[in-house]
């Protein structure tokens, strides 16, 4: 079924924290200067030969002023994200405009605050095996999958609908699709969408067990790529219907596509059928042709399988004309926060007339057929397609553009 074109949804404000820095300007500067946020893994006592995209300073403060119960690495990163780019001011204005009950909170994360539970299991009572009460009483506010949504809704003082979408890596791309539907059907007048995922032993040792971690900074699309680098990030956008806020030149979500592979839990469909479906749906919903897209921000994790299959799918839809690159060499793979991170990098491209290359890609794998960009470019960009694919064969493509 070919979806009807959607009413564009305006990104009235947005903010991003990655290993490259705090705020949209810091991230965009790192992109322009080809400065990677990846460093040798020094997370807790994880003895893994890999690189990580770690956000500095998360150990140096705690949540306070009534937010103590939410305190954990994931929500600290979530809090830090909300402090950048004047985002809190924009939220306050939206509250004035619409009322607190008319603003939805739709968040994405894959592992929430599982690090707290990892710690709690190490600190079990040596005799009874019981978890400490100081952990069990705060599980709801730290590790439970809704914790991030609860935290953001409480901290921003909002009273509209809220949920956390957790579909592994596609989580915070899918928040845009859900928000677009909520706005269109009138469940809310504005939505705070976002995603936060933070480093933990679960994902470090989990991806290590799958032999998907590179021992070097990840090299997307490189002929010698050998795996991904994990990262952490927090990003948010304030979404409003473009019918309500008509602003020429504003950045907007023009289309979204959601699909599944129905193939394997941790391996993409060999022909990329789900990815193709998601990209075509996003284009149709935006009322655009492949040639209308100026740049594709790839999922581009730098695993052998992902980059090969994604290339096949991109080539099937776009041929070899449209420039495509992966920005994972800067940020690492922020898992449940990858969707919002790359949607906002796409917004940077649109506002600054900038196209990132593929950092750390020395020689493009000759088996890849699509047009992989290695070097940064400066040129006008009107429309970007961003791909995110995750475990469970869960795919999401977004089209962002300038109104």
């Amino acid at each position, binding site marked *: 079924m070919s*979806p009807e074109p959607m009413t564009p949804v305006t990104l009235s404000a947005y903010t991003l924290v990655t290993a490259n820095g705090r705020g949209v300007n810091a991230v965009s500067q790192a992109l322009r200067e080809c400065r990677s946020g990846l460093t040798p893994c020094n997370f807790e006592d994880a003895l893994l030969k890999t690189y990580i995209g770690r956000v500095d300073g998360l150990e140096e403060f705690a949540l306070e002023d009534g937010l103590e119960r939410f305190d954990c690495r994931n929500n600290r990163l979530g809090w830090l994200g909300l402090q950048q780019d004047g985002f809190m001011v924009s939220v306050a204005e939206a509250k004035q405009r619409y009322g607190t*009950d008319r603003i939805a909170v739709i968040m994405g994360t*894959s592992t929430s605050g*599982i690090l707290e*539970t*990892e710690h*709690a*299991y*190490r600190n*079990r009572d040596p005799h009874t*095996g*019981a*978890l400490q009460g100081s952990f069990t009483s705060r*599980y*709801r506010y730290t*590790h*439970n*999958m*809704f914790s991030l*949504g*609860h935290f953001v*809704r409480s901290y921003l003082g909002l*009273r*509209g*609908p*809220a*949920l*956390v*979408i*957790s*579909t*592994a890596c596609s989580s915070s791309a*899918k928040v845009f*699709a*859900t928000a677009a*539907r909520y706005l*269109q*059907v009138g*469940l809310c007048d504005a939505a705070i969408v976002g995603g936060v995922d933070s480093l933990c*032993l*679960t994902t470090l*040792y*989990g991806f290590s*067990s*799958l032999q998907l971690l590179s021992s070097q900074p990840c090299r997307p699309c490189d002929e010698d790529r050998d795996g991904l680098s994990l990262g952490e990030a927090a990003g948010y956008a304030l979404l409003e219907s473009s019918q309500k806020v008509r602003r020429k030149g504003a950045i907007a979500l023009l289309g979204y596509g*959601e*699909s*599944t*592979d*129905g*193939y*394997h*839990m*941790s391996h993409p469909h060999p022909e990329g*059928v*789900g990815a193709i479906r998601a990209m075509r749906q996003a284009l149709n919903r935006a009322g655009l042709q492949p040639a209308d897209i100026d740049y594709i921000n790839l999922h581009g994790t730098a695993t052998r399988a992902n980059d090969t299959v994604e290339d096949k799918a991109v080539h099937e839809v776009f041929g070899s004309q449209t420039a495509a690159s992966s920005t994972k060499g800067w940020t690492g793979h922020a898992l449940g926060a990858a969707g919002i991170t790359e949607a906002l990098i796409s917004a940077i491209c649109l506002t600054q007339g900038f196209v990132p290359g593929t950092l750390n890609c020395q020689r493009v794998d000759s088996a890849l057929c699509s047009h992989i960009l290695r070097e940064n470019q400066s040129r006008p960009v009107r429309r970007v397609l961003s791909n995110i694919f*995750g*475990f*469970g064969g*869960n795919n999401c493509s977004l089209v962002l553009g300038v109104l």
Partner: protein
Amino acid sequence: MRVAIVGVGLLSAGLEGWVKGREVLGGMRPFYFDSLPDPDAGLLPANERRRSTVGVRWALHVAQEAMAQSRLDPRDVATVFASSGGEMGVLDQLCRALATTERIISPTLFHQSVHNTAAGYWGIATSCQQSSTALSCYDDSCAAGLLEAATYATMEGCPVLFVSYDLPAPDPLIRARPIQSAFATALVLTASPAAGTANATVALASADCGDVTEMSDSELERLRADNPSGRLLPMLRALAGTGTSSVCMNLLGDQRLVMEVEA
């Protein structure tokens, strides 16, 4: 939003399947809190079923039951899976392993830890390539999931399989989330209400619109209050009855999900 409900799945102690559950909830037979039923995830290929988690088996059992009633091809149906904590048993095993010095975890255990594990296995078992969303809203995961499913069906014009499941966590994690009884339920929603199907309007309202609907039977009310997926019991009771009834579910304290159900 107005949707048709063309399939129902149900599994809990004393509510094994919609045929029996419908009679119990419709007041035709008494509710006895029996021993835990054993889910049949016959849809999964044998090798996947052997490795599957108990959460996956419960979720797929009710999904399969609801889908069979709908007579729809599962490949044409998008999915929304709601669960407060997802794979709590897997998370327990992971955190145990990570607390040892060796920290050895299996690739299977790791990929089964994601919140969309059940959704992913459903897609694999049915070869479905439609949109699939897995979500949480703590105690109100079921209401948030039903809202998401109804919105998707209405806006995308595509039928939706909605599955809600929550199982007790193993010790010691159960202390962090004390859910006592397992509960799984599924609804297949379409955007085309018609004669001969159960129909419902679904709307978001503020908390002052009315009280949350409870179960009159004290044992069923205990089940509703215990398990986040059991919060759907009043809706299921409305579907088991005849005529029109109103159901009100809590959503984050200050909101309600209000359904007018025509069974």
